[in-house]
């Protein structure tokens, strides 16, 4: 394995909780590892599972999907719908043999700045330990003559 492997982490976060939470991490000057790239969407309900698959396709070694805690959704129930979708998506990915240690679902509220830093660090460390998602990379370009 490449000694200097630095994982690519893509995060999909909702505007009202996790994005705001990550803002608070900044305002609180809590440091975390810089591997993560955040994509802002209004609500976890907006997060299509294709986004997660595309992130992996484009070389992410780990993906974070995060939004408001249950009951806290800015849109009342977007996160509940998202949660169901993740439950089914997770099951599907498991059946297909995708390594679910690389996809992290979480709730981070607008007040949980420290938690965001901790989450990013944990995921980054975990994925760094797992190494590049070679298995997935192998199928990119496979089957083209």
């Amino acid at each position: 394995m490449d000694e200097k492997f630095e994982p690519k982490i893509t995060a999909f976060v909702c505007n009202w909780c996790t994005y705001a939470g990550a803002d608070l991490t900044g305002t609180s000057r809590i440091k975390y590892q810089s591997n993560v790239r955040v994509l802002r969407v209004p609500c976890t309900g907006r997060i299509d599972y294709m986004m997660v698959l595309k992130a992996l396709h484009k070389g992410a070694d780990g993906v974070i999907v995060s939004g408001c805690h249950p009951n806290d959704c800015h849109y009342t129930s977007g996160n509940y719908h998202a949660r169901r979708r993740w439950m089914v998506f997770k099951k599907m990915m498991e059946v297909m043999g995708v390594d679910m240690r690389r996809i992290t679902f979480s709730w981070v509220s607008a007040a949980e700045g420290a938690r965001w830093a901790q989450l990013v660090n944990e995921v980054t460390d975990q994925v760094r330990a797992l190494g590049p998602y070679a298995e997935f990379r192998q199928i990119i370009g496979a089957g083209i003559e």
Partner: protein
Amino acid sequence: MEAVNQRAKELLEKGEIKAVLGYAKGTGHVRRPHFARKAGQVDQLVLDAACLQNLAVYVTKHEVKKLGKVAVIALPATQRAILQLMAERQLRDGELVILAVDGEAVKELDSAAALEEHLALKAQGLDAKDKALLAELDAMSREQRWVYWQNELSRCMKCYACRNSCPMCYCGTCTMDCNRPQWVPVASHGIGNLEYHAVRTMHLAGRCVECGECGRACPVGIPVHLLTFAAEESIHEQFGQRAGAKAKLDYALSTFKTDDKESFIR
């Protein structure tokens, strides 16, 4: 069968329907879907253990809708698919005559409510063979499953037989055909196949009536039905919902419970 054909003939003769959709003898021992458009053609219809296709795939096609009212000889899986199509507003009450066949018995139904009542009497479940296949898959390690599916899916050439044979894949413009943006690559290469089958499964999760038509249709023998079965079974386990059972839409992915299990969420 005679009773069904008799009734079908009657309906055709009286002009109440324009065609009967059933099964006929095909190449070799194969049975094929068949439209009898005249009373005289009804005798070509057969019904035996070799009749497998889910005929509900036809009832949403505009070519078929254009024929006028059609009677469908509906085995249980076809019945479930029609009910789900009704719940998804693709068919109206009275648009079809459903000649529901279960073993020897035949019932004539024409509404979602009647279908729901009729189907409620029957237990739905996978057959032993598919259960065993799912169990085998389940018993594999994660890595083995990955290798298994990559091996199977490497044969996929995106002929879309699985999609087109599925009664629930009635969308005029399939997501595979959407190219702004092209979420799923058109090419049937490694990632393209993985994404296609992941999306197909997700789109059928909560809507799959478990007829297995997709797996039967695959010309290269990929057991794609195991994917939708696994999704559907997991939905039934987790949420208690089943596709093709209710007249009123009860879609697991546009409903939720505030206490849905979330142990996997950090």
